[in-house]
């Protein structure tokens, strides 16, 4: 259908035509962006502002008719001086640090091996990627079966290889083993992610750099540390930041695996937040907690975007 504005634009001199088109372009730009912005305002920003407001009150969602008192910064003060909350942060830190260390080590090694370009490497890559595409809650639930002391596959494998009786230990029931059990499942699930990003990094290194190194007779060991690693490092940073953010707010997988137990040893910050908000119904208090988590994630996200832009320039 011919647009009257456009017909007019074609009939007028070039300068005015451009102006007219420019005007309609701007209208189109706004019309195209507006629904997205509106939805984000409704689903993300309005709730966020509401959370900030609630965080200064003692509101409880299960008592909507009770009087709401303005408590100032008291909620923040209580959270940030509470040794129990500090404890959940340390549980989160344990989970975060070890999953990242393991995923980077295994993921980079895998990427490095796959980059040998042997036959069938792309199909193998796809197969390895499968765990990270699946529902963490459903898979996490099934891992509790694999971790069963007497009948579970993991315990049986441990017995088979080390001779420690399968029924003598419980990965999810023991205070010392549970924090490692969740690290293992997360590593199983997300190592492929780190691998994919490292692979992209390795493939971004141009061949001529290695050819030049060969001319200089640099040893493979030296080539690896002076060329391969520095070139992949920005990509690795990206993977570490992304996994860091994701695991800082980890909820579904660990809730299904341990639910925070035994004895709060795997009580990650998001699980604690869920308890405060939806089991104890301390809405004001948990809003403040949510804001603390949110600011941390937002800060890390801004570093992530900066790193992402740096990598994209390459």
């Amino acid at each position, binding site marked *: 259908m*011919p647009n009257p504005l456009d017909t007019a634009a074609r009939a007028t001199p070039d300068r005015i035509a451009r102006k007219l088109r420019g005007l*309609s372009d*701007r209208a189109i730009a706004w019309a*195209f*962006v507006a629904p*997205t912005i509106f*939805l*984000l305002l*409704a*689903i993300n920003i*309005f*709730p*966020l502002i*509401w959370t900030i407001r*609630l965080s200064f009150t003692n509101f409880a*969602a299960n008592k909507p008719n009770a009087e709401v008192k303005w408590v100032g910064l008291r909620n923040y003060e209580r959270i940030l001086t509470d040794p129990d909350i500090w404890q959940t942060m340390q549980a989160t830190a344990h989970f975060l640090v070890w999953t990242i260390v393991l995923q980077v080590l295994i993921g980079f090694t895998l990427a490095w*091996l796959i980059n*040998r370009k*042997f036959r069938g*490497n792309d199909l*193998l890559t*796809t*197969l*390895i990627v*499968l*765990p990270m*595409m699946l529902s963490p*809650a*459903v*898979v996490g*639930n*099934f891992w509790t*079966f694999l971790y069963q002391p*007497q*009948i*579970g*596959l993991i315990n049986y494998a441990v017995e088979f290889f080390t001779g420690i009786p399968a029924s003598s230990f419980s990965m999810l029931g023991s205070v010392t083993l549970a924090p490692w059990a969740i690290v293992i499942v997360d590593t*199983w699930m997300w*190592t*492929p*992610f780190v691998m*994919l990003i490292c692979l*992209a990094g390795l493939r971004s290194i141009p061949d001529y750099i290695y050819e030049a190194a060969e001319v200089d007779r640099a040893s493979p060991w030296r080539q690896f540390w002076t060329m391969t690693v520095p070139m992949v490092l920005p*990509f690795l940073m*990206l993977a570490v930041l992304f996994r860091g953010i994701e695991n800082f*707010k980890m*909820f*579904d997988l660990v809730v299904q695996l341990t639910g925070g137990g035994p004895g709060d040893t795997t009580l990650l910050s*998001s699980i604690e937040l869920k308890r405060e*908000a*939806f089991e104890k119904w301390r*809405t004001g208090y948990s809003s403040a907690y*949510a*804001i603390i*988590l*949110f600011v941390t*994630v937002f800060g890390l996200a801004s570093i*992530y*975007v900066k790193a*992402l832009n740096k990598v994209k320039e390459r």
Partner: protein
Amino acid sequence: MSSYSVTEPSARSKSVAAVLVVLYAVITLLPLLWIISTSFKTGPDSISYPPKAIFSPTVEGYVNLFTNRTRATTEQLATMPPPANFAEEIVRKRNEVITGPSRFGERFLNSVIIGFGSTFLSIMLGTLAAYAFSRFKVPLKDDLLFFILSTRMMPPIAVAIPIFLMYRTLGLSDTHLGMILLYTGVNISLAVWLLKGFIDEIPREYEEAALIDGYTRFQAFRQVVLPQAATGIASTAIFCLIFAWNEYAFAVLLTSGNAQTAPPFIPTIIGVGGQDWPAVAAGATLFLLPVMIFTILLRKHLLRGITFGAVRK
């Protein structure tokens, strides 16, 4: 020049690498294979010691997944008419009778409706926004894009508190519409980021030629840009679908009956004295298998989107 190349690894290093990667793939796929195989075991087989790798397959787990059953005595069973179908037959062997269909079918359907509904919405809105960001001067563009990205990174539980209150007021809690809007709100950021990358790669000259030919902006967008971006749109859609399909935190907090999806439901399948593992495995298999097949079939298009488009190949 010889055929020797410094960047081409030797045959020996290739085969060593291949063996190691295959070994990792086998170990990492074992839990998934275990889910599938458990779904075809009988109850006693699934919890035997040592774990059984070889067993006679049965669809008992699937029958349990889709039905509610009750115990019946041998005398009661003797007075009943012969089993009407294979499911009844399997159940009767264990001295049980089917009392009706289970909730799993509904939950699975909810997952499908909410998954596809939110994917459709996010792609529709996301394509428009991505096109605008890619082609026009939008004021505060970088800030808007960063804002859009950062909304994706919000912890779901933190957002869930006000959403819970808001939905309660609006009557959207535990409805399909509410969940579709919520998942669209979360997915749209990823959609805009990925699609902007795809649209950026389409040369502007195509549209400019169309504009000179007398197309309006909107016609140029619909008839020139959209067909060019089709693969990008398709792979973005798969990502949105997988997210909505797998999502658990919002689903468990904001739905209870009517609009509950499969991920919060599957872990609650219980039999006599604990979880009914073959039924859980059957539910998991039906739920996970479509994603696995999608991933394998669409690997070329999927792998790129994994880090907001940072991975190029």
